């Protein structure tokens, strides 16, 4: 073999298969570009680490990497299928398999180097653009230092070399496993008609149904958080099962209906789809899942971004919150803290409104009937109660409501007291002590600071602060070393008047005052902390802006993947179908009929997954609203509008790709007569 022959053969192979290789090459380039950007953002953009988004971005890097592997593997398998025939001819003409292997090695090398150079080059330009956008979104100074990330380039080089190697091995295996005759017929080997698998189809219905059921029926936000991924996995499984088994089953039912089947418009489409369903199904299911992922990602992040002011107000119901956590028996005086805060407000000329101030202690417990017992360590989180214990005086300071509680009695507030089980309780036991109930409220306690906790809340009101201290002492005994070292919690919150600048100035003055007056505890944590809505706003918007950006970025990545998968599928099928359509035209299928058949077929392939994705997102909607609620977004109409808009925009992009694909497909299969 002459030196240089195989590399040249490889180059010829690439250029003579432009129609399949160019899209593949562009796909590789696009993925490199995306991955470079993801890495550069995660590891090189200091602004992101400032707002603690870089860990989120690291997840993004992983997602993109996994995605790149799956996606490029999938596209490659299309490409190699198209080229088997060519390799078969080389083989028959006397090129050994070893030489074919070397040729393939050169081809992968060309594609790898080409897509790396182009992808990283474009990636750097693109990175500059998105960094600008990101800074703008995060409201940072745009006079940033832009740098090329060597680390990102290294990661790209390694990842894509790995992918190229994986694909090369797969391709070599394909060539190795087949003899020349099989290679020659590689792209149109008579595939057996798939069997209708009723049990699998049924399993698909069950898993999908279970996923939907979870998504729709779960009310409790904590369960939503825990079961969200279970639901996602169930739905993904169900989708794959239904697409693979269900589709064949449905198509076969349609074929059994002779009146329906033997119509020009249905005849070729149904048989063609049954024939190719095995490979079709996985692709369609992937498209459906990817589309759903895009829709969920974009609609949630967009609505969080748009609704971030709402979220800010949910998270910070009051403008300023001063809290202190401290152990029993210290000199810390909650009343003095309140007076001091008022004094600073007076110096700054701010008027205080909607003041709430209270001190409480919290104890976690399990429940057996009407007895709250020490939570066994390592027990499942499910039934843990968080008991917030405070005096009647503090209860009034907190809620503005008065309750009458006698010595040794408790007033109880929590969901559990509204349950049927609790109807005949006239006393409850807390860590071994029994208390008669002075009264109950069966609603969910709205206790601002605790609302994000993942345990069921119960608010217990005693007659005096001494009684609260007694419960705390009991808890100390019961839990020993594991007891919270700072069981007392004082909270002062309020709004103020004034402009944004004045509010910010006051918040700063208050913070400095507290820093100078209050010591740190044994762990060197400040005893007194404060949060101000105004001073949090910037970092808050950074976080949501970053999330938004990430959502859009990953969303468009997935969208690109979806679009390319569909395009590829159709092109490959177009080549497969070329022969078939040629035969049908010889037998007397007209141009119009070819066009109509193509349109039906492509339409089905396109819109079945989109339809399924729309159903998925509808089912997921209740669960997503609850997740968003956990994140502080309670504006459901806003989320609904965002979701609908996302779906519409997606459908529009989808329709454009559809019409383009149908045209290309038609051009492939239609032979001029």
């Amino acid at each position: 073999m002459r030196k240089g022959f195989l590399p040249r053969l490889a180059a010829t192979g690439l250029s003579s298969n432009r129609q399949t290789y160019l899209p593949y090459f562009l796909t590789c380039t696009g993925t490199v570009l995306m991955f470079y950007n993801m890495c550069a953002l995660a590891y090189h953009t200091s602004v992101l680490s400032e707002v603690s988004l870089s860990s989120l971005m690291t997840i993004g890097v992983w997602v993109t990497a996994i995605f790149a592997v799956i996606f490029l593997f999938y596209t490659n398998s299309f490409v190699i299928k198209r080229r088997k025939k060519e390799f078969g001819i080389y083989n028959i003409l006397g090129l050994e398999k070893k030489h074919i292997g070397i040729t393939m090695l050169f081809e992968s090398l060309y594609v790898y180097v080409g897509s790396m150079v182009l992808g990283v080059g474009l990636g750097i330009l693109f990175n500059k653009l998105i960094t600008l956008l990101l800074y703008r979104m995060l409201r940072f100074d745009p006079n940033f230092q832009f740098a090329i990330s060597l680390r990102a380039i290294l990661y790209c080089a390694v990842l894509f070399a790995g992918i190229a190697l994986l694909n090369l091995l797969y391709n070599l295996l394909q060539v190795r496993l087949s003899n020349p005759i099989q290679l020659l017929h590689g792209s149109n080997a008579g595939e057996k008609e798939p069997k209708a698998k009723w049990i699998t189809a049924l399993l698909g219905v069950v898993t999908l149904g279970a996923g939907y059921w979870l998504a729709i029926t779960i009310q409790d936000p904590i369960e939503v958080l825990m079961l969200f991924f279970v639901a996602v996995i169930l739905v993904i499984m169900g989708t794959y099962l239904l697409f693979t088994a269900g589709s064949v089953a449905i198509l076969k039912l349609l074929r059994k209906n002779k009146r329906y089947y033997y119509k020009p418009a249905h005849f070729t489409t149904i048989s063609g789809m049954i024939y190719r369903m095995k490979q079709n199904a996985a692709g369609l299911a992937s498209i459906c899942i990817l589309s759903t992922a895009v829709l969920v990602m974009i609609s949630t992040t967009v609505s969080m971004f748009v609704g971030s002011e709402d979220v800010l107000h949910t998270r910070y119901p009051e403008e300023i919150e001063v809290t202190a956590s401290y152990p029993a028996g210290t000199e810390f005086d909650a009343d003095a803290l309140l007076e001091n805060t008022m004094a600073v407000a007076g110096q700054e000329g701010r008027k205080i409104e909607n003041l709430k101030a209270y001190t409480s202690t919290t104890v976690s417990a399990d429940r057996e009937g009407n007895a709250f017992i020490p939570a066994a360590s390592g027990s499942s989180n499910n039934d843990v109660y968080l008991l917030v214990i405070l005096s009647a005086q503090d209860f009034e300071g907190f809620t503005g409501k008065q309750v009458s509680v006698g010595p040794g009695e408790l007033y109880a507030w929590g969901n559990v007291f509204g349950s049927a089980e609790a109807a005949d309780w006239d006393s409850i036991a807390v860590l071994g002590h029994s208390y008669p109930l002075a009264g109950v409220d069966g609603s969910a306690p709205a206790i601002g600071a605790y609302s994000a906790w993942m345990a069921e809340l119960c608010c217990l009101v005693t007659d005096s602060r001494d009684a609260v201290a007694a419960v705390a002492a009991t808890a100390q005994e019961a839990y020993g070393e594991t007891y919270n070292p700072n069981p007392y919690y004082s909270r002062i919150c309020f709004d103020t008047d004034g402009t944004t600048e004045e509010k910010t100035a006051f918040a700063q003055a208050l913070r400095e005052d507290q820093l100078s007056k209050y010591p740190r505890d044994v762990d060197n944590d400040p005893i007194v902390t404060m949060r101000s809505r105004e001073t949090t706003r910037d970092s808050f918007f950074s976080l949501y802006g970053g999330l938004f950006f990430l959502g859009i970025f990953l969303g468009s990545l997935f969208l690109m993947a979806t679009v390319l998968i569909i395009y590829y599928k159709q092109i490959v099928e177009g080549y497969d179908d070329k022969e078939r359509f040629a035969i049908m035209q010889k037998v007397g299928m007209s141009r119009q009929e070819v066009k109509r058949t193509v349109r039906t077929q492509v339409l089905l392939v396109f819109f079945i997954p989109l339809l399924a994705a729309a159903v998925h997102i509808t089912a997921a909607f209740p669960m997503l609203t609850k997740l968003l609620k956990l994140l502080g977004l309670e504006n459901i109409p806003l989320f609904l509008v965002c979701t609908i808009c996302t779906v519409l925009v997606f459908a529009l992009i989808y329709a454009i790709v559809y019409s383009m694909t149908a045209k290309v497909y038609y051009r492939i299969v239609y032979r001029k007569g």
Partner: protein
Amino acid sequence: MPLLEVKNLKKVYTTRFGGAQVQALRAVNFSVERGEYVAIMGESGSGKTTLLNIIASLDKPTAGKVLLAGEDVTSIAEKQLSVFRRKKLGFVFQDFNLLDTFCIRDNIFLPLVLSGEDHKKMEEKLIPIAKKLRIEDILDKYPYEVSGGQKQRCAVARALITGPELILADEPTGALDSRASDNLLDMFSRINGEGQTILMVTHSVKAASHASRVLFIRDGEVYTQLYRGERTKEAFYADIASSLTLLSVGGEEHA
């Protein structure tokens, strides 16, 4: 009036980049009467497939006319072409051209489905044809599950089911072994015996000897023709063979 008249047919292929021109047919003239069984012979590249494709309206001639029952095939509008092809013509190809996506039955039904025929009528039409071609037992199988001979008989069934005026066959035995070939040729003879007109392109002297007339094509023209008349198949075979020898010798004289 003959069923098929081919008048002064000419076909010049121009390669895409405008370069060389290939004259596939120069001036082809012949006609086929109703009920005839005509074989067309000629060496590879002599333009047989080109001729058949033009008669089948799959390709347009550079000049000349093809009249089927008096109607000019070459001037039918694109829109009516496929209907014309479906109703008047039946095709049998060397490589069967069955669709892997359909079972044999559906393959045979394909032209009828395209014509929008009622499903019950299709079944009625299929029964006698399937019996005649001995494919009743494999109707529910798929093309990749049956032998080449069976495939070709299915293709014949597909050509016959529309009740065409003319069956066009391009080397129908080309991909078959000798037993399957004999079998298929017997079928053709039988179908022709029932009055079906057949025009068959072939390489094989044996195949041609089944026909009632053989046309020889050379240099893009009908060079000569032989009628079988009252002769036996064997005698006709010998005649065809000697004509072919003459033809190739003549070819060398020309050169």
